[in-house]
């Protein structure tokens, strides 16, 4: 697989850094690919905006930061507007429909789902919004297998929350299926 660039964006506390780590581990450890994950550490990291980047490839990943995004996940309006210009032509934009109202212009495929709502209503906990998002992303991007992502989630989440997180992933995955169908 060629270099594939993903950026997960939203607000602090939505667990996007963790989601990025999971994605990278899924790719690198369970899928045998290369993956690098980066995030910002500046003052912006503690305030509102948060972003994590994952670059996946079956070759060496030299330049570690995203240059042209293949996929952008945007959980807030702010992050969607700020980052969508980095999306490459024909790239994938996944948004949380409850928060992103103003859609950016550009030549990309937009997938819209009430991600936070799914976490709250279907899984029962807002904290798993990130895992729901991972489910959707896995389904839509198809760069990593469902199985690998699940393994990576299980290796990362606190003991006792495995079931909850699996449910979150599945709900997301399902939502992804619906979006594709």
């Amino acid at each position, binding site marked *: 697989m060629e270099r594939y660039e993903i950026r997960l964006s939203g607000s602090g506390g939505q667990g996007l850094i963790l989601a990025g*780590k999971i994605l*990278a*581990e899924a790719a*690198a*450890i369970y899928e045998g690919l*290369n*993956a*690098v*994950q*980066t*995030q*910002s*550490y*500046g*003052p912006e*990291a503690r305030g509102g905006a948060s972003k994590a980047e994952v670059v996946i490839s079956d070759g*060496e*990943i*030299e*330049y*570690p*930061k995203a*240059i042209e995004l293949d996929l952008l996940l945007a959980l807030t309006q702010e992050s969607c507007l700020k980052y969508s210009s980095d999306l490459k032509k024909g790239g994938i934009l996944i948004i949380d429909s409850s928060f992103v109202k103003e859609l950016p212009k550009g030549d990309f495929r937009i997938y819209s789902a009430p991600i936070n709502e799914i976490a709250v209503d279907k899984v029962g906990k807002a904290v798993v919004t990130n895992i729901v998002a991972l489910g959707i992303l896995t389904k839509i991007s198809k760069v990593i297998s469902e199985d690998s992502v699940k393994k990576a989630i299980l290796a990362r989440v606190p003991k006792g929350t495995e079931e909850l997180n699996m449910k979150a992933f599945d709900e997301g995955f399902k939502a992804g299926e619906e979006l594709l169908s």
Partner: protein
Amino acid sequence: MENDSSGQIRMMQGNQACAEGALAAGCRFFAGYPITPSSEIAEHLSVALPKLGGKFIQMEDEIAAMGAIIGASLAGMKSLTATSGPGFSLKQENIGYAGMAEVPCVVINVMRGGPSTGMPTLPAQMDVQQARWGSHGDRGVIVLVADSAQESYEQTIRAFNLAEKYMTPVILLLDEIVGHTTEKVIIPERSEYEIIDRKKPDLPPDKYLPYRETEDLIPVLATFGTGYKYNVTGLCHNETGFPTNDPAIIGAQIKRLTDKIIIHKKDIIRNRMVMLEDAEIAIFAYGSVARSARSALAKCREAGIKAGLFQPTVLWPFPEDDIREVAGRVKGFVVPEMNMGQMAREVERACRRDTPVHRLNRVDGQPITPGEIVDLIKGVV
């Protein structure tokens, strides 16, 4: 103590990889003072060291941390400190002490941007000359650099090995990108890498002279508590370790501090040469910029430009002979750096001829992209 995760694939930040590499090298003492973007090294070791019976201590400042690792090293523990620009400046006096007293230890500097507080969270490579010249007085210096988490792991081990072998502080430079990027590290099997331990005196205490001039110019310092009672000082000293003002002894001692690195430079220097055989233009790049350079290289070759990469993994001693050799073959050098051209100066110097050296300098806290390097090369050829 064996590393029980050998062969494993793990995702790690460069900083964490340094910590893990240190443990693999046998490091059992860390003293530090927190500073972005290096703090994860300390944090990781604060958890891990006591589990191995090692010691972690957060000191009152960087000066104290540097002092503590020298003390711990003399008491027999392989010792590490890690910091970033401002802390690196503060450590310089005691780094010089370790150099003068020939106490092995490792200092990691995860470079941030700018002078002073600068850009604490943004990448740069602005301390590469400071790593060589930051402390007062003259002596030889070993400085390594890493470009990835994998290399951070390996270079940390190498730093400890060189420190113990040459009885000297060894500096390892990471830039913020390397320190903070999480990527795959394949933990090597124990058989795949060497661990060098400090030489022990081969003479009984009454015959022992710690700073006796040996053929390899490297002293043999006994561990405190093992029955050898000698003096360690930062003053110029004779072979017993006691201060002297005798010009002949002083002169020989100071010269030896430089020579002990220089005569072994073949053993110390390691470069990665990529597609340099037929190259017409050579990129000189290190640290995270070397990654961009490798991408750029591929693109250049695609475009029919014969570019090659000279990537030093040891910045000091500077690989000047190797550069001179390459300079004789190429039409020019391209030196992309996240500073105002610090190592480009050395490339210029090493050439000893009019080979053009083209600089590409970014100092805005942003990484240099492969595209920028390609553009510069295209403009040059």
